[in-house]
């Protein structure tokens, strides 16, 4: 995102809308005497477009120029209006558990483990995304990446989690690593994430997906309790109303 120096009047109205914080600076116009405009720090800006969409600029100075690779990954992951063609889903991630009732993406005994770097509201460079991806894939837990996820597409080596070198210096409002492993590997996955959390220069949120059995505990809950890991009172819940239903159990009607 940029501000047109010939239009901008440095009114600062767009400042609070930026999820990345105060990333603007004041500049003196070289040709118009006494005129001040703002310059958006292109290194910090993730091209999410919220300042533009808010219509807060009284002189229409804000504009998003078309970006080329690798900068275009910022908008792909940060602007919710842009659809990543690889996942065919708007936004940063995949359908994950939302369609588990019809796709059977997470079977009994499997857990989805997602790590969203930069969230909430801090932003993340892909060099940190790479650190987490490589930690998960080198942990020997059989972590299986979601192939349609944008971050997976940016990997030069999907067996190690190594990202393309040209995206490492790019930044997104948030970027999700999505994948799954066996339930028995969940404690090790959590241990790995705790360790790599000390190495990244940002925050990340962790999410865990499970099929709920017809009876008894949700299998991931005893794991959290045994490891004394905090988990939320709120969750995302698939109601199982999609059609045609995926057959998870042999005795399922």
């Amino acid at each position, binding site marked *: 995102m940029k501000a047109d120096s010939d239009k901008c009047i440095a009114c600062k109205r767009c400042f609070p809308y930026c999820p990345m914080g105060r990333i603007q600076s004041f500049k003196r116009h070289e040709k118009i005497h006494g005129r001040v405009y703002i310059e958006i720090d292109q290194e910090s800006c993730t091209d999410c477009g919220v300042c533009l969409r808010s219509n807060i600029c009284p002189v229409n100075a804000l504009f998003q120029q078309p970006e080329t690779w690798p900068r275009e990954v910022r908008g792909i992951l940060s602007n*919710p209006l842009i659809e990543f063609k690889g996942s065919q889903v708007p936004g940063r991630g995949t359908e994950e*558990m939302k369609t588990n009732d019809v796709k059977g993406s997470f079977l009994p005994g499997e857990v989805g483990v997602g790590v969203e770097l930069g969230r909430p509201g801090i932003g993340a460079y892909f060099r940190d995304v790479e650190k987490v991806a490589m930690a998960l894939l080198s942990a020997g837990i059989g972590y299986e990446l979601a192939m349609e996820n944008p971050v997976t597409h940016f990997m030069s080596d999907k067996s190690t989690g190594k990202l393309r070198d040209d995206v490492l210096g790019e930044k997104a409002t948030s970027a999700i690593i999505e994948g799954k492993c066996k339930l028995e590997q969940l404690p090790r996955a959590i241990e790995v994430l705790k360790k790599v959390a000390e190495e990244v220069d940002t*925050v990340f949120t962790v999410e*865990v997906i499970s099929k709920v059995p017809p009876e008894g505990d949700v299998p991931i809950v005893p794991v959290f309790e045994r490891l004394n890991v905090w*988990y939320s009172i*709120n969750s*995302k819940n698939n109601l199982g*109303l999609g059609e045609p239903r995926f057959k998870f159990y042999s005795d399922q009607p």
Partner: protein
Amino acid sequence: MTHSLHRRGDYDSLKEDFVVLGCPATGVNKKGSAPKTQKFLSICYKHGPINLGDMKTGNIYNTTMDDILAKVTDGTIVQCTFDNREKIVSLLKDLKENRPGISIIISGVTEVVQQCMDEAGLGRIHSLEYSLGAWGQIEKLPDFYILEATTMCGHAMISADLVRKMVRDVKRGRRTAEDACLEMSRCCTCGNYNLTRGIKLLKKLTAHYMVHTLY
């Protein structure tokens, strides 16, 4: 895509906060899903959501319901936000009788969602996703009270500075809490922002902060 998962807050703040999503599945029922998604939206609309939208088109506070319905295509994911448990129970009863055919997901307090499903005769939750919170350099995060407001938009389109500015505007009498929450809801394109909860949070925030400490 977990934009309705990591909402911060305690039980009392979250127990009347639900995001209901309709999602077709690529490779299974996405082709020809537009009428099913429109049916899902229409059913939800009947039960009085506080917000509703599609991330590509916008929500009901920056466009119209007719526009959102008209722009639904195969694969569109829509979300409807509710501020009332009773509405969720009646919605679930309706969805049980009139299944749109696409996957339906509810983000909310797990125990409350399960109770609502039981009351609607839907049985157990099929699959779920828990948040394990934020890890790493959490000292970079704003205060918990600000996070309660910002995390209602999972795409982080409601900035911490915007919340601070809205609190300051309310404290200075420049806006009402309702106007401030409308402004924030416009930034959250998907329609996940719960205005009823937002107003309560903003009123709580105004008591917590002095004007000079804000944006």
